[in-house]
């Protein structure tokens, strides 16, 4: 879009007028983009946007109906043409470790792919050492692939895809379901291979916050491109500012703001509003006016994130109301709801062993009624086991706890009546209709007929399901399915709601809508919500968080507190804009800056002394003839917090192990 016109020799991929149909369903409807040599190009979009179809076609493993796909100047119109380019590309299909062999060890998997690609022995050893080094997998060379965690599998998958040094790597949702630390490692390899070997990469992702990692990107929605270009170009499509502040009562503030703004989100105690005004003062003035007399404290304005822009574009495209209905969602059943005093969940020194392995080690926390509580941690940190103990699926080995006022060990029956649970898979019966699913759970919870009718009506209204009541659940879009699953979990008006990775595969608007529902449940009805998530951008919605590592809680606090704590320890985040980021990164790292990482064309660096370091950075880079075009401080994200905490712990445990 805004890129320089390049000669076709630099064009690695050209897709034009691409159409892919599966029977009647049109997965991709007219797609155009080109990928230049040496860039990391992103396809961003929710599940079902058509990303996989395009990537498979480019990798030469899927035919297409209309348009053309050229790779390295070869038109892929036949099996034979596809075979010609296959040796020059590496393809990582979607799904954790799907291209690997579970019965082979890490090293055997790598060697197998290297032999398949005829990599010379000397090259193989060098590359293997380097790749295992960056991914920190070298300690696990002899471990069988099936014993690796999800993140490790995915890193191994990437190594096997890159071992023959392809000119083009095609990676289909490589970071979905991968914990944040592994995601960082993943991006580190890609950035290095791009900078050092000049590799081109085409990567799809459902995580909006990964957009900044790309040089250029296309945002797909329903098989079409919604926006494309450099991240900055996309950002400039919808000008505006994001205003973050606190106001009470929060729900009333949200209601007032919504009359004026289309994007209002509550993130824990603060509110996040996207304003069309580009001037900070005008934006704040607009907010104050909309709030009427309500207070606005801790005000700050920021450049909008890509997600805000994309949501604005999606809203424009749909041109409709996507917010939850304004009618107050009082269930009318509050009186029926079993009331209890004290905290919603109280865990004391919970322990769970599986054989000799301690999955959960003396976990204690308390969750207030009406609180949104986040449980974060990498795969295998013990989050799911904690939820399983609290919901009564798994008995604890030791410790005690009370859930919704009932004792975990003696009153699991009472607990089950008072809690709601929604799992990653949304746990719905896909061949039943929406209303049949709701009715099933109403019966399971023993609701009387009249009561069930009322609740069903409430769920349909709350979750915006009215157009779908008699549709089979399997045919619903993910966002609607997710709200239905939430509805089913709420059918008996539980006091405590457990959500295990509830937002995977849902588009940004669907996610926002879901969070709006959750915050209303918590604020209006006093339901306590415990949630685990891999999307750390979502953890911002929580009132309080705990971070788990190796079965233990290692950090606890509000998102703000956690960030402030890490900022005190490691410093502030600076974002550098330079013309040659790859080379500049090496210089910055060599100068001893911690946490230096490449984000597309920008460099992130941690600094304890922002103003002093800014000058130092400019100086260091000026010495080698590089110009810094911009330095700006950025808020640490929860992902930064997570990664910094977990990395520190990993290093500590390795040292401990070595001792």
């Amino acid at each position, binding site marked *: 879009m805004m890129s320089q016109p390049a000669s076709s020799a630099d064009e690695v991929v050209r897709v034009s007028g691409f159409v892919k149909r599966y029977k009647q369903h049109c997965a991709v409807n007219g797609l155009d983009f080109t990928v230049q040599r040496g860039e990391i190009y992103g396809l961003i979009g929710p599940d079902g946007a058509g990303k996989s179809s395009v990537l498979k076609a480019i990798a030469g493993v899927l035919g297409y109906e209309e348009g053309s796909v050229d790779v390295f100047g070869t038109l892929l119109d036949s099996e034979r043409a596809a075979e010609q380019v296959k040796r020059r590309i590496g393809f990582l299909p979607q799904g954790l470790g799907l291209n690997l062999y579970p019965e082979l060890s890490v090293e055997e998997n790598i060697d197998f792919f290297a032999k398949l690609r005829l990599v010379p022995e000397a090259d193989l050893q060098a590359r293997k050492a380097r790749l295992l080094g960056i991914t920190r997998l070298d300690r696990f060379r002899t471990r069988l692939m099936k014993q690796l965690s999800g993140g490790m599998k995915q890193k191994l998958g990437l190594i096997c895809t890159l071992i023959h040094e392809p000119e083009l790597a095609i990676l289909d949702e490589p970071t979905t379901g991968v914990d944040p630390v592994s995601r960082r490692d993943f991006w580190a390899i890609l950035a290095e291979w791009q900078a050092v070997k000049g590799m081109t990469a085409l990567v799809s992702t459902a995580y909006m916050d990964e957009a900044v990692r790309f040089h250029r990107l296309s945002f797909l929605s329903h098989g079409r491109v919604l926006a494309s270009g450099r991240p900055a170009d996309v950002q400039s499509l919808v000008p505006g500012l994001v205003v973050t502040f606190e106001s009470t009562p929060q729900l009333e503030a949200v209601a007032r703001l919504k009359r004026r703004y289309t994007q209002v989100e509550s993130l824990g105690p603060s509110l996040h509003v996207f304003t069309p005004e580009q001037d900070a003062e005008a934006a704040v003035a607009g907010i104050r006016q909309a709030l009427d007399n309500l207070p606005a404290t801790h005000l700050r304005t920021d450049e909008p994130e890509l997600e805000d822009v994309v949501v604005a574009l999606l809203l424009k495209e749909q041109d409709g109301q996507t917010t939850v209905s304004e009618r107050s969602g009082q269930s009318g059943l509050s009186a029926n709801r079993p009331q209890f005093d004290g905290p919603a969940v109280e865990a004391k020194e919970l322990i769970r062993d599986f054989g000799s392995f301690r999955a959960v080690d003396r976990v204690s926390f308390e969750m207030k009624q009406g609180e949104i509580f986040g449980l974060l941690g990498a795969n295998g940190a013990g989050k799911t086991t904690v939820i399983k103990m609290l919901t009564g*699926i798994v008995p604890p080995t030791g410790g005690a706890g009370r859930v919704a006022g009932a004792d975990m060990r003696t009153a699991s029956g009472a607990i*089950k009546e008072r809690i709601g649970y929604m*799992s990653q*898979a949304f746990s719905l019966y896909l*061949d*039943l209709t929406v209303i049949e699913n709701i009715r*099933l*759970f109403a*019966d399971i919870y023993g609701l009387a007929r009249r009561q069930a009718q009322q609740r069903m009506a409430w769920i349909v209204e709350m979750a915006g399901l009215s157009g779908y009541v008699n549709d089979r659940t399997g045919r619903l879009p993910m966002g609607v399915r997710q709200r239905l699953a939430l509805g089913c979990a709420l059918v008996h008006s539980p006091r405590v709601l457990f959500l295990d990775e509830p937002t995977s595969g849902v588009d940004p608007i669907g996610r926002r809508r879901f969070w709006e529902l959750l915050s209303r449940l918590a604020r209006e009805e006093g339901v306590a919500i415990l949630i685990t998530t891999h999307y750390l951008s979502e953890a911002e919605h929580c009132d309080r968080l705990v971070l788990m590592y190796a079965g233990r809680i290692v950090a606890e606090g509000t998102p703000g507190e956690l960030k402030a704590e890490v900022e005190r320890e490691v410093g502030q985040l600076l974002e550098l804009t330079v013309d040659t980021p790859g080379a500049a990164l090496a210089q910055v790292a060599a100068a001893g800056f911690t946490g230096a990482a490449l984000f597309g064309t920008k460099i992130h660096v941690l600094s304890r002394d922002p103003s002093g370091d800014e000058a130092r950075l400019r100086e260091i880079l000026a010495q080698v003839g590089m110009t810094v075009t911009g330095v700006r401080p950025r808020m640490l994200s929860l992902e930064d917090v997570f990664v910094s905490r977990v990395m520190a712990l990993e290093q500590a445990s390795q040292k401990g192990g070595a001792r």
Partner: protein
Amino acid sequence: MTVGRGVATWGQRLVALTWKELLHLWRDVPLLLFLIYSFSLSVLVSGAGITMQLTNAELLAHDEDQSPSSRELIHRFQPPYFALVGAISDPREGLRQLDEGRAMVVLDIPPRFHEALMSGERTTIQLLVDTTNAPQGLSAAAYTVRIAALFGTEAALASAGLSGAKASRPLVSSAHRVWFNPTQDERWFQSISHLLRMITLFAVLLPAAALVREKERGTVEQLLVSPVSPFQIMFSKVLAMSGVILLATALALYGVLHPVFHVPMKGSAALFFLLTALHVFTTAGFGLVAATLAKNQAQVAMMALFVVGPMLLLSGITSPFESMPQWVQAIMTLSPLRYYIDITYGVMLKGAGLDLLWKPVGAMLLLGGTLFGSGMWRFRRQFQ
């Protein structure tokens, strides 16, 4: 909460879960079609098509005598059991045709056969039988022996001047009366056997698949955190599938067995269906245990075959139970099908009631209870 309300809620949950299972099956069109086919067309085909009786065994005659007696003997080999496919003059030709599988029986009549019979000498005929298919070969040999023996006796009597009604020499003649299947219609046995096979197969597979599907989809966790017991989760599946299998059995019985093959129902049909339900419940226990061990539908199907295969082969519908080695018989006391066979033939063909069948019924109850109990025990443990 009062006890009455508690029971009502318990029932409400069980009904809701059972209804859900029926909806799943109703919407699984391919499975539904397969079920209907298995209990209609497939029963029809197996009843009409499968027979163990000797039919059209190809017979070659090597007649070196070419006499009235030799021709008489050859013509006693009649359809439907035998089909004369030709005469040969060279014995090696006969061996060749046996080797190539074009003849099943070669009848070799020596020279001077007629002469010997007439003069009251002893004579022999030779019979070569291909017993690659052992039951067929054995019955071909048996028939031949009978035909030859009768021919010999008649010849002997004739040579003694006795024939027809005048034959008053002491002879033992066996008069046999056929019970329970008076016309000796083999289609009865075959079609009933096949029905039993289908009932057993679906009784293992349907509930097992339903349970594993919930594990695969993750819906079972949703059920575990709700106030339903493992018993309700498992029993609702067996209940729904038993209902479906009983309906399908009725379809086979009143749509195929009765109108087409005229299989009678001598005993009480209600008793038959009741005991069929018991068999389905017991057999489903195997499926449920398998489902708690399996991770996905492919695995459970494999495990089910592992159980169902030997059960179908060795319980006594494919071959007689009594003729099996002792140790096989011992293992097969664990097969519900073994008891169900006795029950089915007993009720349908012999008109037996519970007074005669209490032993197999008791054995099935014991077996079913144990299986279901261990399934429930495994069910809880598999998530821990």
